[in-house]
Structures are given as C-alpha cells and as structure tokens.
C-alpha cells in the first residue's frame, strides 16, 4: 500500500518472496508470474474462502503492514518507526512492501481477515481488491454496495493508478501453521474494508444496521465467495425493499468515478476506487506515507465532488458575489473558482448511495445465522454502552501478524529459533558472566569484590525466592486457552537466557540481578541501545504482550503488596504512548464489542476462558458470557473458538465503535490558526514559513470532505478572515474591541477546506506580506484566544497558536517575571508556575468544548511560557518552542520549524478523545502526567490526541495481590478519527506479580523509572521548589540503592552495589539533574527550563530518553560491521560512547543524538579524509562555523554517515536539526553541556555523584 502510486502489477507479484510462496498452500497462485491481469492471480484462492453466510470476511488492510520486508533473506532490524518517517516521500520502494510474517505457531494466522461488521457482502468485495474480479465478473457488482457507504470517499479517489498500488499489496505473508487457511492467505490483501461508519456528507448515522427481518437473501453455505456475495449485494438480484434507491445507486456509483481506464466489467473500477478510498483513509489514520500520496494525487477530482456535496446550495457562479470589503493588501484577483462545478447528479448520487447501503445492510445482515436473539437480550440487560443493537453481528477483524516483536529487526519467532539453536552472541565485548558457564553458587561477597562484576552470583535471596516458585509456580486460574500463566521458574530462566539475543538487554533473570559495583565499573553504559526488559512471563504471554513502545511499566515484576513496594523504594507507574504510529494494527469492526460487564474492560489476550461460553475478566475477575457472535472465528472459519479471535490474539487492537459510542455526530476535522502578526512577529518572519508549509500540506491535512479551516490574526486588534466560498478574495474583518470579543460574522470564518481552497491559498499567499509595514507592537493573545474559543466551540477541533512575544494587551496579559541575573542561581528558581489563571481556565473551557490549543512560541525574549503553556497543558494540546527564532539570522531554527510544521500538519490526529486506564483490582492509579484534563479518577479527557503525545501514570497497590500471579493494565483510547469515525484503540499489558524483593529489583525498567521520576520531579518543582525536586531525585537513587544493599545483597556497605537492572539508574538521574529542566548553577533561561519541563511531561518515553541521555557515536570510522539493512541501505551501527569528554579524541568526529537535535563534533585533528569525504571541505580550517547539512558526496564514508543519520532521523516526530560543531567554535558549549558524565563548575561528574550517593547511603 505504501508503494508509490502506480507501481505496476508485475511488481506486486514479483514481490512475493519465496518463503511466502512456500508457506501458503496455494503457492502457485500466490507467486504467480506478473500476469497481465494480476487481479486474477488470486482469484481461485479467494474463492475458497467460504464463510458461513452472515459473516463477511473482510480482508482488512490494516494499516501499512507492508513496510517491513522480513523475507528470509532480510532479517534486518529496522528502526522502530521507520515506516512513519517520511510521509509522502515516496521512499518506500517496492520491496519493502511485503510483510512476510514469519511462520510461527503463535502468529496470527495471516494478517488478513477482517470480519465485517456491516453487510458482509460489500465488505468482502471492498476489501479484497483484485481477487474477486478474477473469480467472476459479477463479483464486481458487489462493490457497489460497499461503495455506497463511502460514497463520499469513493469519489475522491479516482486515479486509476492507485488501484495497482493497492492490488500490489495483495500478497501478505502467512504463517504456514494454519493449514486450512493457507489457500486464502495467498490473496489476502488486507484492506481496511468497508467497516467505516458511513458518514458521508453530514449524516452521522447514515449507517443503519439491524432489522433482521429484512428480506433474507439466501442461506449461503459453502458457495464460492464471490458468487454468493454477488447475489447478496447486486442490486438487480437483491429484493430491494425500496427498489428505487437501489436503482439509484448503481448508476451513481458508476458515475462517481472519472474512470480513466475502464475495465471491461465496468464496475471493478468502482471497486478500485473504493479500495483506494479504504486504503487512503485507513492509512491516513495509520500514517502511512504512500496512502497520503494517493490521497493527494486524486485530490483535484475531489474538489468537485466535495463542493457539490457538502454544500448543496453551492452557487456555481461565484463571481457574482460582491466583494465589498476588500482587504487592502490582498489583491489577488481570484477567479471564480472554476473547479467548483456542481453536478446536481452528485447530490442525488450521495443520497441514493446511502440509501442503497441501508438496503444492503438489511439484506445482508438478514442471513446472519449467528446473531441469535439471546445474544441481544444479554446485551441489553445492562449494557448501556455498546452493542445495544447487535442484530447484524458481522464483525471484522484484521488480525495482523503480531509483529511488534518484529519491529526491532528480525521477527520474534525467528529470533527465537535462532537464539535457541545457538546461544545468542553477546553483542558487547562486555565480559558477560551469563555466557560463562560459571557455577551458580552464591559466592562470598568478599570474593566477588576483587573481580568486580565478574561473578554470576545468584543472590541467596533470589534463590530462596526461586525455589518455591519453581516447585509450586502453577497457573493459578483456570486457564482455558492453554496459557501457561506462570511457568516454572527455571524454565523461564532457560527461556529467557536463550532469548538473550532477542533484545539486547533482556538479560536472563539472574543477569538482571547480577550485582554491579558501580564505583568500580568503568564502562557502565552498554555499547548498544538499552531495550526495555521483557516481563518474566511465559512464552505465550510474552508474545501476546503489548509492545513496550506503547506501554511500559516501571517495574516489570509487580510487587505483591504496597509494603514490598515501599521496601523497594522504586516508583511504580506506567508510561504510555497510546496513539503511536503503528505499522500494524488489527482493526476490528464488530457490533458487539466484547467487554466485561462490571468493569467494562475490553476483552484481551489475557482473559481466561472458563469454558466455551464464558470468560473471566482479568481485571475484576467477573465471569462474563461470550456473545454468540464472538463464538465464530472468521479466521479459521470455525465455530466455538473464541480464544482465537483477533481481539484475544492481539494486545493492541483498534475497534471501530458503533454509533452507540457517540451521542453526537463525530465532529469534522476543524483547524484554526491563530497567528501573531505584530511587529515582532513580522520581524521574525515565521509567517512565510508557516504559510509555505500550509500551502504545501493543505491537501495532506488529515480530514475528510467536511474538513474546515480558519484563520485569525492578531496584534492589538483581532483580524478574522471571511473565506466563504464565492468571494473573489478573502475578506479581513477587524475587531478592535478586545475587551469584549465577538465574532464579526456567525459563519464563514471557518470554511470547508475543499470548497474554499482557492481563497485559502490566496490568503496564505498574501499573509506574509500583508503586515510588513505594521507598527503595532502589542499582542492581544488573550482576546484572540477567547475569539478562537468562541469560533471553535460549536464543533471542537484544533487551534494552533503562533505567538512571538509576551501578551501585552487585554485579558491574560503578562508581565516579564524573569530576572536575568537569577538564571544561573543555584538557589531558588521562581516563576515555574503560571502567573495568571486566565490561560488555565480558558484551556478548561476549551477542553469542555473538545478544542485543543497547540502553542508555537517563537520568541527571542522571555515570553512567560510557564503561563502560556497552561493553554495547551489542560486542553491536551502540544507545545513547541523556538527560542530566538529568526528566519534569516537563525536558519537552523527556521529549518526546524519547517520540519516540525510538516510533521505537525500531516500527522494523524484524533478528536474528542477520552482515555481510560484500567488495572487489575488491587492496583489503583493516583496521579497522571501529560497534557490533558483529568475528568474522573481514571479518565483523561483529551480534546485532541496526536501520535507524539506520551502519558505517565503513577500507581499504588491498594490491596494485596497475593491471590493472583498476573496483573493487567488496559488503556482504552476512544477518539474520532479525522475521517469522522469513532474508534477505540486498546492496549493491554500483562505483568507478573512477585513476592520477593529480589524479583522486584530484577524487573526494574530503568528507563521507564527515570521517565516517571522526571515527571514527578516536574510536578514537585512547580508545586514546591526546584531544589526539592532535585533532592527528591537524588534521594530516589539513594533510597533504592540502599534498600537494595540492605535487603538483597550481602555486600559490605563500602561498595556501591546495584543490581544489573538498576546499574544505569544513577547515571540517568545525574543526566536528569543536568537537564535544562532541573539544572542549577548553569545559566538557563526560564523559558528554556519551562519548555524542558513541558517536554518531560508530554513526550513519550523513547523521545524523552534521548533528551535525558543523548546517544554519542563515533562516526569518523564507520564500518559495515554489525550493520543493518534498511530499505536496501546499509546502516552502520557504531557502538554507543559514554557521554564524557574522555571519549572525544581530537582525531575523531562524533555524532550526538539528543532527540530533537544532532551535533556532529569534529575534532581538531580529525583526519582530512573524513572532512573531505563527509563534510566536503578540504581541511579542518575551512569547515564553516555554522553548518547544518551534510553534502551528498559520492564517497563510501559519506554514504555511510548519511545513511546512519537518516536512519536515526527516521521515526522521530520532530525531525532533528543537524549542527556541525567544530572543536574550537563557540557553539561547542552547546555540545559539551550534554556530556553529562563530566564535571561542570556547578555539578558533579558521574564518579563524584556516585561517591555522593554512597556517602548518603552510609549516613
């Protein structure tokens, strides 16, 4: 799907890797030659997918599952988010498309099938792009019904080229294990399927399921799919209750396409575009690059349709409108938009289509044999939320191979097999005792000391703990599905040791407990990136568990009681990244979303099935009934295997919520830009960059045909822009009464993006020059925000505020509070909190109206971010800060703004979201961190959710967990996608419970702990004081290490001993103390400090860790040793260096990856070959002071360096800016301040810090 549009079909089939062909029973068809009629290649196979009638099998292309090429020949480790790197960049070459999920036992059988919630017939058709056409020409008729529901979409995607793209994805990998399924696997292009709630032009409840009493179609048994479905949905065959609508719809669906290449059967075209539409929409949500390309490519066509559809009263003769108020500067004569050719038929068409869909729904839902009435009764008893009408019980799921494990390169199972067969090579030269077959005998501590870390000492305590477990560690619950809940300890150890190579840090249990003498270990930092520890679960559960990228707990072994937790002195909490861009996400469309009756937990892989018909909730332990619909597993086409359903096979799933989950129509995507145009802002010149970015990305803004956009500018007055379609040019309306802001016109300030596109473009072209001569220096931000709030409150949406100075007028005006002399004070840092409540209150109001405010602060002076940030903090927005921004004087900031804007404008967005976090009974959440409003004790209200938002939750143990061996956490994020769908994304994490302190220490996730501590420290420094927070951080280290020293290890106190799992803890805490947010003694501007705090609160863990502890690599001698292959590029993997100047040699060049910025430090004595080959200058002296780009030189080392940097950049939300720092340039202080292991005049070096900690412990 992500392939560039228009990739030829031959390529598609050629892409099918050999392995896949072998795995699938229908190999011949799958790996067919590039036949001229590629659709047919899958036809036969597809025909075998017979499903009992009533279950539409949707082949669901869930999100770009195709980005990782994991063919046998390519076990590459990819950057975690490499697929979401360059949107639209077309980087995605053909080969990367195929996912070949490694064939393993526990993999989801194929990524493919999705049970259709809606009418089965349309879904099938819609979802299987090409395969059906080969089956029977009549199959194409099916599409019509599907296309109806998307009538609005369908029309948008008209480029025929797209079809080939989609069809090319048709080859999905399949596990060989599901033998009976193999046939179908061949053709499973998993497409998003027709499961969208049909929300075309404006009718939110367009899709009506239910009414089982409609004319039944026919009981289909094992007919060929296509034939059956054709019958079901073909208009002519259908006994249509309202026949007229049916008649409508076919011609319409035909007419909707500007079919350039009309295929013989005619209707397949419809199919194509439908698919495109699916692909596009889903991909938008999953941020697939290419899909958006597709989107935009077909855009021009879209316009027509939109205009005609969503405003039925569109007058085509636009020119007649009198432009009475013409802004003085915007003189671009706008032609009466010729593109708005209203076709009256379109309107009809829409209606008819919807209607027709309704009919089809009825028809197709009728034959559903499984939707028994008893099911409904059960549901209706007390289910107030969902599935109240569950008569059409088709559900669609797109079980995608559970590939999170595969993200790190190599698929999980493959890695497993390889590592089991041969012990995983230790990547680091680190003398790892685990590899040495040392006897696991508790050594006397004195012996251990001289050798430092060299002994694989099993702590006595650990052994004690392990013994009872190994003897009696039995699954506690009745585990129906055969999960071994708590395997015996030794076996786990074996497993995990054999898994040693799986993730580099997932050392076996004893390893993570291996005592490390911190003061004697010189190289504490591993040379490879630190991965999240893998919870000590059985292999089954491990595979099912949620990806650590989305969901992490600070303790992967949950202590049994609060007392035990207190003893461990470690923070307990969760780190969430719920809306992360995912490569593969099973999307499930089901009318009955199965949930626990009492606690409303969504069914997840960790529930236990007591018998066929009942499941036990893993959070509240209530026994629930399995709904009838759930008994059928469309993947295997078998009945009575509820535990094989995709919901139960994936810990991260997305449900498409039925209309029961919304009481108002899903809001359209609404974007409002509030721009500072005072003198200061014009001087900084951000408008040019913003308008340019907007113009470029206007078509890529996530949204559907209802997308609306508006602009407000302000200086001492507030300017609105009337962009009503039909005007010849934008009208500027000025409101100068900032004390009582009102909207000059009730509507037409927020206009439909597609209808008024020309006007918007005009405005964007004119804006940068409109205010060039302004003398106005005041900034009335508060009133402008009030106006924005008024403008947005009917719908909700996103407000993007660009501010360049301290607000000086009207409500919410601020005074400068920073005393520059106090910047480097070691004592009290004041004014970390807001100066006024205005912004907070406004933010709460916005949050209540589902409006999020994103703040871009581009300021050269103090702007009181502490106060301004409140507007985003409590309305779930995000904050960007560009200190001393100037478009010419500070090109790196300008470049950064440009890149950030690109990401910001095009990334996925969810509206009117709520997130609820549930956890097993006995645990409770008490404090949340992030940008949101806490609406209830476990419910976060998020006006907007974006893929770059992270959250943290602190947990406490209220009741003893002795009667359970596993605890689970579930995050459910309910949001409205930019396409107007209500969706629920559910993540479930399962962790073991342990009773001994040693096990608690063994399971510490040090990175998660640090991030949680950082969040807590931010709170502490705002509510109390910065020095308090710093003390608390140091105390966290002191307490945990001393607790470990006193209770677990028997070492004498003269040495500073930490378990291996905690060995980086002091280093990270020191890094935190030297962070801009918490450092003292070094000159730090207040805004910088506050911004760092905001980032700590709102960044997800991966990005936060880079910010706290940057990665340092030596790049002047990159080799291919250990290199990985990404997209056919060789990416070298240089070892990590510790952040100390002692590692910097004058002869070298080093790259520091600080998350949002890269530094390349070039030593004075750096070899000329490097400078010449990579930097493109003859010698060191000629390298300029400010260099932000590496030239594209045709040398090996340049190529290596660039591919390495590109690889690092991929998957960052904020594309980092590169700075080349020469050894003697003044900019090197920027670089050196990140060398946190070194001593500064104000802070400890790492070794001193350790001594300090040790001193504190001994006290």
């Amino acid at each position, binding site marked *: 799907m992500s392939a560039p549009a228009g990739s030829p079909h031959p390529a598609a089939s050629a892409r099918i890797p050999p392995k896949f062909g072998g795995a699938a029973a229908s190999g011949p068809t799958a790996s067919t030659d590039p036949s001229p009629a590629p659709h047919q290649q899958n036809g036969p196979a597809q025909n075998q997918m017979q499903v009992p009638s009533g279950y539409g099998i949707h082949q669901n292309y869930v999100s770009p599952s195709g980005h990782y090429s994991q063919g046998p020949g390519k076990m590459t480790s990819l950057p975690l988010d490499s697929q979401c790197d360059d949107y639209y960049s077309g980087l995605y070459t053909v080969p990367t498309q195929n996912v070949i999920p490694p064939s393993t036992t526990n993999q989801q059988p194929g990524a493919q099938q999705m049970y259709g919630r809606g009418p089965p017939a349309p879904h099938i058709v819609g979802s299987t792009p090409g395969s059906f056409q080969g089956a029977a020409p009549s199959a194409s008729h099916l599409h019509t019904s599907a296309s109806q529901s998307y009538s609005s979409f369908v029309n948008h995607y008209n480029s025929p080229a797209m079809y080939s793209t989609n069809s090319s994805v048709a080859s999905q990998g399949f596990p060989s294990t599901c033998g009976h399924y193999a046939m179908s696997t061949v053709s499973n292009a998993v497409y998003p399927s027709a499961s969208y709630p049909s929300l075309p032009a404006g009718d939110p409840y367009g899709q009506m399921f239910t009414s089982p009493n409609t004319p039944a179609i026919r009981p289909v048994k094992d007919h060929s799919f296509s034939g059956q479905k054709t019958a079901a949905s073909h208009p002519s065959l259908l006994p249509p209750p309202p026949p007229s609508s049916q008649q409508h719809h076919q011609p319409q669906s035909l007419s909707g396409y500007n079919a350039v290449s009309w295929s013989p059967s005619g209707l397949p075209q419809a199919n194509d575009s439908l698919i495109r539409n699916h692909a596009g929409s889903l991909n938008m949500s999953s941020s697939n690059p290419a899909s958006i390309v597709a989107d935009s490519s077909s855009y021009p066509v879209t316009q027509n349709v939109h205009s005609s559809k969503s405003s039925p009263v569109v007058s085509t003769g636009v020119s007649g409108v009198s432009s009475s108020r013409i802004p003085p500067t915007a003189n671009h004569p706008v032609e009466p938009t010729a593109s708005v050719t209203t076709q009256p038929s379109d309107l009809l068409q829409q209606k008819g289509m919807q209607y027709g869909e309704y009919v089809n729904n009825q028809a197709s839902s009728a034959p559903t044999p499984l939707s028994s009435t008893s099911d409904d009764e059960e549901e209706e008893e007390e289910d107030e939320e*969902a599935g109240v009408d569950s008569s059409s019980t088709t559900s669609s799921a797109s079980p995608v191979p559970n590939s999170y494990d595969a993200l790190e390169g190599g698929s999980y199972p493959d890695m497993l097999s390889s590592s089991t067969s041969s012990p995983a090579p230790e990547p680091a030269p680190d003398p790892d005792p685990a590899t040495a077959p040392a006897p696991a005998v508790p050594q006397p501590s004195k012996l251990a000391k001289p050798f430092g870390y060299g002994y694989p000492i099993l702590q006595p305590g650990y052994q004690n703990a392990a013994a009872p477990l190994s003897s009696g560690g039995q699954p506690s619950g009745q585990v129906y599905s055969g999960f071994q809940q708590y395997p015996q300890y030794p076996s786990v150890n074996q497993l995990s040791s054999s898994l040693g190579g799986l993730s580099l840090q997932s050392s076996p249990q004893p390893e993570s407990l291996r005592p490390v003498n911190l003061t004697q270990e010189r190289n504490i930092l591993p040379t490879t990136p630190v991965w999240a520890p893998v919870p000590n679960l059985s292999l089954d559960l491990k595979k099912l568990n949620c990806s650590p990228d989305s969901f992490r707990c600070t303790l992967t072994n949950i202590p049994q009681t609060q007392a035990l937790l207190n003893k461990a002195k470690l923070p307990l909490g969760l780190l969430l990244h719920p809306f992360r861009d995912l490569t593969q996400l099973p999307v499930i469309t089901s009318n009955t979303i199965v949930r626990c009756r009492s606690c409303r937990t969504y069914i997840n892989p960790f529930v236990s099935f007591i018998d066929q018909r009942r499941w036990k909730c893993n959070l509240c332990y209530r026994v629930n009934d399995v709904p009838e619909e759930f008994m059928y597993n469309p993947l295997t086409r078998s009945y009575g295997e509820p535990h094989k359903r995709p919901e139960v096979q994936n810990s991260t799933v997305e449900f498409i919520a039925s209309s029961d989950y919304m*009481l108002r129509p899903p809001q359209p995507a609404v974007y409002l830009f509030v721009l500072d145009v005072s003198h200061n802002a014009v001087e900084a010149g951000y408008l040019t960059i913003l308008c340019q970015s907007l113009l470029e990305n206007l078509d890529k803004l996530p949204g559907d045909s209802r997308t609306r956009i508006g602009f407000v500018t302000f200086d001492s007055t507030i300017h609105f822009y009337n962009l009503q379609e039909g005007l010849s040019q934008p009208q500027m309306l000025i409101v100068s009464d900032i004390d009582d802001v009102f909207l000059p016109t009730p509507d037409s300030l927020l206009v439909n993006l597609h209808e008024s596109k020309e006007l918007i473009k005009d405005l964007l072209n004119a804006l940068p020059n409109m205010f060039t001569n302004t003398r106005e220096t005041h900034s009335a931000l508060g009133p402008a925000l009030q106006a924005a709030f008024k403008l947005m409150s009917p719908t909700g949406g996103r407000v993007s505020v660009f501010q360049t100075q301290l607000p000086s007028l009207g409500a919410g005006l601020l005074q400068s509070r920073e005393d520059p002399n106090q910047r480097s004070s070691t004592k009290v840092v004041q004014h970390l909190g807001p100066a*006024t*409540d205005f912004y907070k*209150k406004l933010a709460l109001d916005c949050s209540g109206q589902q409006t999020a405010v994103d703040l871009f602060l581009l300021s050269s002076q103090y702007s009181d971010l502490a106060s301004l940030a409140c507007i985003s903090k409590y309305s779930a927005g995000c904050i960007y800060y560009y200190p001393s921004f100037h478009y010419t004087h500070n090109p790196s900031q300008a470049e950064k703004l440009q890149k950030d804007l690109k990401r910001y404008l095009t990334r996925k967005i969810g509206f009117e979201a709520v997130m609820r976090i549930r956890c097993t009974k006995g645990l409770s959440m*008490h404090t949340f961190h992030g940008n949101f*409003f806490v609406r*209830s004790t476990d419910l976060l209200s998020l006006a907007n959710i974006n893929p770059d938002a992270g959250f943290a939750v602190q947990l406490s143990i209220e009741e003893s967990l002795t009667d359970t061996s596993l605890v689970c956490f579930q995050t459910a994020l309910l949001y409205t996608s930019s396409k107007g769908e209500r969706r629920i994304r559910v993540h479930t994490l399962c962790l073991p419970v342990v009773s001994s302190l040693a096990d608690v220490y063994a399971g510490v996730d040090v990175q998660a702990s640090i991030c949680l501590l950082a969040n807590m420290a931010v709170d502490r420094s705002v509510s109390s004081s910065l020095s308090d927070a710093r003390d608390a951080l140091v105390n966290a280290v002191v307490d945990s290490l001393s607790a470990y020293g006193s209770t677990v290890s028997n070492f004498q106190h003269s040495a500073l001993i930490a378990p291996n799992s905690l060995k980086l803890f002091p280093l990270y805490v020191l890094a935190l103390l030297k962070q801009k947010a918490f450092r003292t003694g070094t000159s730090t501007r207040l805004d910088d400090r506050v911004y760092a705090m905001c980032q700590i609160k709102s960044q997800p863990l991966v990005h936060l860790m880079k910010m706290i502890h940057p990665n340092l690599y030596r790049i002047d001698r990159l080799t291919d040793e250990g290199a990985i292959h990404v997209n056919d590029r060789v990416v070298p993997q240089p070892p990590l260096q510790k952040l100390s100047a002692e590692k910097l040699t004058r002869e070298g060049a080093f790259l520091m990856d600080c998350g949002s910025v890269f530094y390349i430090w070039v030593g004075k004595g750096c070899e000329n070959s490097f400078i010449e080959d990579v930097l493109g200058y003859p010698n060191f002296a000629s390298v300029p002071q400010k260099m932000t780009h590496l030239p594209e030189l045709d040398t090996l080392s340049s190529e290596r360096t660039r591919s390495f940097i590109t690889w690092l950049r991929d998957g960052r939300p904020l594309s980092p800016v590169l700075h080349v720092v020469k050894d003697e340039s003044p900019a090197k202080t920027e670089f050196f301040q990140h060398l946190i292991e070194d001593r500064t005049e104000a802070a400890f070096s790492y070794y001193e810090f350790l001594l300090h900690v040790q001193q504190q412990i001994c006290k």
Partner: protein
Amino acid sequence: MAFTFAAFCYMLSLVLCAALIFFAIWHIIAFDELRTDFKSPIDQCNPVHARERLRNIERICFLLRKVRGATPGGERKGLREMKQQLVLPEYSIHSLFCIMFLCAQEWLTLGLNVPLLFYHFWRYFHCPADSSELAYDPPVVMNADTLSYCQKEAWCKLAFYLLSFFYYLYCMIYTLVSS
C-alpha cells in the same frame, strides 16, 4: 448560675458549630460527587457529558473557592458565586470561635481549636495552584491522591466539629451550672 460571657460564647459556638458541620458534610458530598462518575464510556465520550462534567468539577471547585476572583464570565455570575463560596465562611467562623474563646479566657477550648486554626491558615495561604484563588484546582483535584486527601480532610473536620459540638454543649451547661 450566671450567664457569663463564657456561657454566651459556648451558646453561640454551639449554633455556629452546627453550621460548620453543615459545611463539612457539604464538602464530603462535593468530593464524593467528584469521585463518582459514570463508568459508561458512552456517557464519557459524549461531549455534552464532558462539558457537564467539567462544569460540575469547576462549579464544585469554585464553591470551595477562597475568595471571589475574576473568572471567565465571573462578572456575570459574581453575585451568585459570592453567596456560594463556602470555604471562607467556614474559616472565618472557626476563627471567630477562637477569638471568642480567647476573650472568654477558655484556654482549654482554645487550645483544642488552635491546631485547626493553624491548619486553616496554612491551607488558606498555601494554595495548591500557583497564584490561584481556588483552594482546589480543577485540573489537579481529580488526581486520586489529591481527591482522597481532600476527602479525608473533610471527614476529619466533620468528626472534629461533631465532637466539639458536644464538647461545647457540655461546656455551656457546665459554665451555666457551675457559676
């Protein structure tokens, strides 16, 4: 049997103590209302509910406000809110007690009340949100630990006021009878 100033103090405080008990109960109810929320995600996702919920939280927080401050739209409903604010009356009534007992030289009673007086002072001047006039900050109050703290505080106050009610009753009779 004489109607001394001390007896008058006790009689007055007896009446006012009933008011304080009312305040404490009101607090408990308010926090309970904050804590309980419908578990139904349908309601949760409903924007109307979201707004209602938000207003509710804000209303309660505003009721518990210390002083009348400028809120967005506060000018309009200022009068109503002034009547509704509950924290300041409670604090002032309690400090009135203390002053009266000081004047009446009822040292024991004063001593019993002084800790709470100091707590009130601390609570009043050390607000959770920087520069906020709210004693309870809407964005923060829903954090479970804040909420449970507030609830505990309210329960403790209720117990204290109840006990002191009977203590005042006893003291009143005692002073009336003894002198």
